[in-house]
């Protein structure tokens, strides 16, 4: 939470912009989340985890995500007018926009979402410094660092060096969990996997839609495609 207060203003700006665009849907989502949480409140930890996992699979969450994704993608399309139209760079920009939108949809409740948002902001502000230093700290570039860190805590069976090593690897994959202990990494990974699955589903539906493809072939295709179309019909493009 301390890191979020340092760069709180731009983060809250982004969040307020997202909030203004989808106020009504958010209220409905909060009501649905509270009703979901009331049903499975066995222990505090499990209820927290269930609240985190279940909303990712709900259709409301996917609606919110796809609408914000469209907005972000439109901004990505308009802004890089001077950048070279090389495919890898555009792809990376789209990936970063999708990650940012995913993190905003998580509403900063999880560590990885906060890490994604603060990473993007530090990249924006310190772009020139990063180029001079030559270090690329992105959420996607973790696979480059291949230092195996083995900390040996032989107190319990779960603290085997093999488990610790895999925990470090997993912590590098999930943004913002590099030096976290095992239970934190497990919890973050659970939420992150659910979020990534939703991201994949939404982006695949959007890509199918844009390629004018078979959105009516499968039942799930029509569901997500129709959702995206609803989003489009509700809002006007900024400049066209």
């Amino acid at each position, binding site marked *: 939470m301390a890191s979020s207060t340092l760069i709180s203003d731009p983060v809250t700006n982004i969040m307020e912009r997202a909030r203004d665009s989808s106020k009504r849907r958010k209220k409905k989502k909060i009501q649905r989340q509270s009703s979901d949480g009331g049903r499975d409140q066995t222990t505090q*930890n*499990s209820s927290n*985890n269930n609240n985190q*996992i279940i909303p990712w699979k709900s259709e409301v969450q996917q609606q919110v995500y796809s609408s914000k994704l469209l907005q972000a993608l439109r901004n*990505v*399309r308009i802004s890089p007018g001077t950048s070279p*139209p090389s*495919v*890898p760079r*555009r*792809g*990376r920009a*789209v*990936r970063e926009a*999708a990650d940012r939108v995913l993190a905003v949809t998580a509403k900063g409740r999880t560590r990885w979402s906060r890490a994604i948002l603060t990473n993007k902001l530090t990249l924006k502000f310190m772009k020139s410094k990063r180029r001079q230093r030559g270090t690329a700290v992105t959420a*996607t570039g973790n*696979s480059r660092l291949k230092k195996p860190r083995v*900390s040996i*805590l032989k*107190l*319990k069976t*779960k603290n*085997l060096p*093999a*488990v610790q090593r*895999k*925990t470090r690897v*997993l912590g590098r*994959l*999930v943004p913002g969990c590099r030096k976290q*202990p*095992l*239970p934190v990494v*497990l*919890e973050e*990974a*659970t939420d*992150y*996997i*659910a979020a*990534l*699955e939703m*991201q*994949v589903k939404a*982006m*695949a539906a*959007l*890509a199918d*839609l*844009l*390629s*004018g493809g078979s*959105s*009516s072939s499968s039942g799930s295709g*029509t569901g997500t495609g*129709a959702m995206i*179309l609803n989003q*489009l019909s509700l809002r006007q*493009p900024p400049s*066209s």
Partner: protein
Amino acid sequence: MSSRRSRSRQTAASMITDDQINDLVSRLHQLLPEIRNRCSDKVSAAGVLQETCSYIRSLHREVDDLSDRLSELLDNTDSTLASIIRSQLMQ
């Protein structure tokens, strides 16, 4: 600093019980697509972590591919909105 951090890590690990860790591991195990193919009893932490790492990597790859595809589509079609509206009318 590092000693303080490792000591806090030890105390935090001792506060989190084995049962909680087992619970988290089993929940993560359920999310993985492996469980649907074979009923694996490999609920060991190392195995689940390994599967989780590979699954997250594959998801990242999928997102990268999709974003590349989306960027191409956004570049090629100028009137993206027109094509979407057209597909909506065709539905």
